[in-house]
């Protein structure tokens, strides 16, 4: 059985938390004591019927204010798949937490309130999903019960969304009319919307193909740690511990070490101290090379005839996440890419992307919290990267503030 990570996005009160609660409830994944706890909490808040959103709003201030501030992870399973659901906050001010949750997602469910249609947060979250290269997007048009379960209402919003999506890079889009509150088209097919003949939400979640989304082509392995036991029997042992970011590696493969460019051959691949034949995407293994080359944390081992770009000049889309300081040309940060860290300086903000129209805004001086822009930067050491849209794992980077040490930017290298 495999694993699917998905995020729920959309504006405040569109029903994200309720939707996750509903999925858990209808797939019988809420345990008796958790149910009692939310029943108790619902009663003490006088919300009438039980509020399934309380299942994910776990922080005191979230419960007090009735909003989601930070991402919550919930785990459930059906006979077909295991799921990690990520409930994201809808408020603009917490967009960076949404980006945190979305960065690892295989699929995004973007909720739209059927009464309001496409709104600013729909556009913002769709842009983020597209930039982050989330392969599958489901637009759940929610609260259909409040618009009389009308097919026309659904079609109108669907049309508006498709128009928006045409400006973005969304590979696989599904639109579903739902009621998270009543459970229509979530797990069970709606009797109130007989006109809808497509799949239920759960059915899409259970069947999307995530294996296909992984980059199986480009062999990339970033070295995390060098294992050198230095015991008598393992005197000369030097194993490079890391995770295969993309592609596959086999014993005997010719490889190159970047950024130095040194070439060698894979002598052995190990997992947990035992030899294995090959290692594929996302496996954490240890690679031993035939030659005694100088490799340390931050280096990348790649297939010999398939190199990433090695450069100090990088252009990237950035989501800016610092609520205290702005990003300006000339600022210096630490760039973390794979296991490599390098100081870098911002050369230019090429353009900012308008969240509503997706238009490029020129001559932008600085970026503030949640702004999205294309920037040019130069690193102190060369970085071995692939364009993000080709290789999510090797095209992603973060910016770290050198004084506060906080993560302030999410970069998708172009």
């Amino acid at each position: 059985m495999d694993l699917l990570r998905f995020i729920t996005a959309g504006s405040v009160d569109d029903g994200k938390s309720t939707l996750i609660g509903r999925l858990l409830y209808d797939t019988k994944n809420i345990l008796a004591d958790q149910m009692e706890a939310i029943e108790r909490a619902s009663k003490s808040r006088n919300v009438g019927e039980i509020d399934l959103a309380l299942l994910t709003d776990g922080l005191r201030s979230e419960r007090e204010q009735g909003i989601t501030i930070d991402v919550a992870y919930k785990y459930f399973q059906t006979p077909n798949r295991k799921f990690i659901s990520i409930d994201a906050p809808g408020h603009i001010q917490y967009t960076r937490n949404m980006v945190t949750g979305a960065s690892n997602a295989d699929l995004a469910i973007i909720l739209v309130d059927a009464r309001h249609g496409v709104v600013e947060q729909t556009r913002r979250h769709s842009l983020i999903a597209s930039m982050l290269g989330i392969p599958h997007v489901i637009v759940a048009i929610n609260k259909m019960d409040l618009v009389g379960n009308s097919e026309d209402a659904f079609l109108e919003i669907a049309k508006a969304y498709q128009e928006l999506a045409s400006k973005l890079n969304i590979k696989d889009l599904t639109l579903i009319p739902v009621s998270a509150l009543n459970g229509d088209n979530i797990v069970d097919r709606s009797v109130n919307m007989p006109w809808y003949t497509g799949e239920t939400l759960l059915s899409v979640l259970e069947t999307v193909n995530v294996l296909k989304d992984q980059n199986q082509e480009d062999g990339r392995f970033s070295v995390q740690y060098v294992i050198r036991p230095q015991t008598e029997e393992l005197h000369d042992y030097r194993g490079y511990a890391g995770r295969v970011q993309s592609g596959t590696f086999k014993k005997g493969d010719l490889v190159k070490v970047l950024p130095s460019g040194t070439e060698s051959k894979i002598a052995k691949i190990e997992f947990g101290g035992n030899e294995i034949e090959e290692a594929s995407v996302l496996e954490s293994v240890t690679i031993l090379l035939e030659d005694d080359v100088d490799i340390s944390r931050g280096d990348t081992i790649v297939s010999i005839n398939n190199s990433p770009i090695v450069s100090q000049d990088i252009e990237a889309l950035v989501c800016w996440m610092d609520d205290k300081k702005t990003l300006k040309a000339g600022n210096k940060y630490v760039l973390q890419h794979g296991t490599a860290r390098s100081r870098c300086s911002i050369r230019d903000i090429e353009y900012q992307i308008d969240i509503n129209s997706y238009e490029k805004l020129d001559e932008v001086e600085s970026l503030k919290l949640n702004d999205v822009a294309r920037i040019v930067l130069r690193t102190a050491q060369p970085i071995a990267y692939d364009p993000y849209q080709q290789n999510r794992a090797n095209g992603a980077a973060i910016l770290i503030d050198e004084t506060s040490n906080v993560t302030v930017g999410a970069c998708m290298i172009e």
Partner: protein
Amino acid sequence: MSISVKEVSDISDQEARRSSPDYLDQLEAEAIYIMREVAGQFERPALLFSGGKDSITLVRLAQKAFAPGKIPFPLVHVDTGHNFIEAINYRDELAEQIGAKLVVRYVEDTIKAKGLKEQTGKNASRNWLQTFTLLDTIEEFEFDACIGGARRDEEKARAKERIFSFRDEFGQWDPKRQRPELWNLFNGRIHKGENVRVFPISNWTELDVWAYLKRENITLPSIYFAHERELILRDGKLLNNTPVIEPDEHDQIVKRQVRFRTVGDMTCTAAVESSAATLDEVIAEITVSRISERGETRIDDQQTEAAMEDRKKGGYF
């Protein structure tokens, strides 16, 4: 009691990987990746070890992450003095067997040194006091990262926490100012005196842990399996009958066939009635159980709706 924590190289990983469901491999690979990030990014990490199933899982993952080398950081146990003897023995044997350095610090010593007041009365527990000992230990060894076995499925505040959870110099977690955590790019940069709590099995459920222990053929402390035991029946919960828990007139001493689902501090960990004597039987019982791990066995979380969040803000694990 005998434990057979197998040498990592005894088990055929390839075989294990072929026969088990994919998601366990994915979770394992992610956890190993996180362990290695800790070793790569920090100077003085530690693995917080309690002798419970989650930290036993962590040890196995760390062994695999660094094989054939040894785990490049010590195991650290904050001993409340109220732990199950079976878990303590297991801890000592395991550390010896894998050649890991073991650091044990006692809540008792902190209480004496600081003149702390212990809770008294019916549900008195040292659970909260552990935080002081933990913070002192972090200071003593200048640990910059502490690996813990917390899982997001355990509790609603934990469900919100990052995998690399930044703590200030007082060990405090600020849920409103968590660092963004993007992709698998963990940011462990800190100033001196601050530290990071790292949770490699954040994305594992209780069942995943049990399935993994079974797949890896790991022997657990005997209290995880059904055995007959004398217990205190208090408010419907079965507590170990030990001198550290004072029964009152409402409590009843009973003898039951039980097992423990978690093995925390005895004062706040309840047993469940069970006849499950093997891992398979335990997994079968948990699969059909309609009550969560903490709901069934932890007494400390049920005192207020935000008990865990408050403890974490104060520097708890």
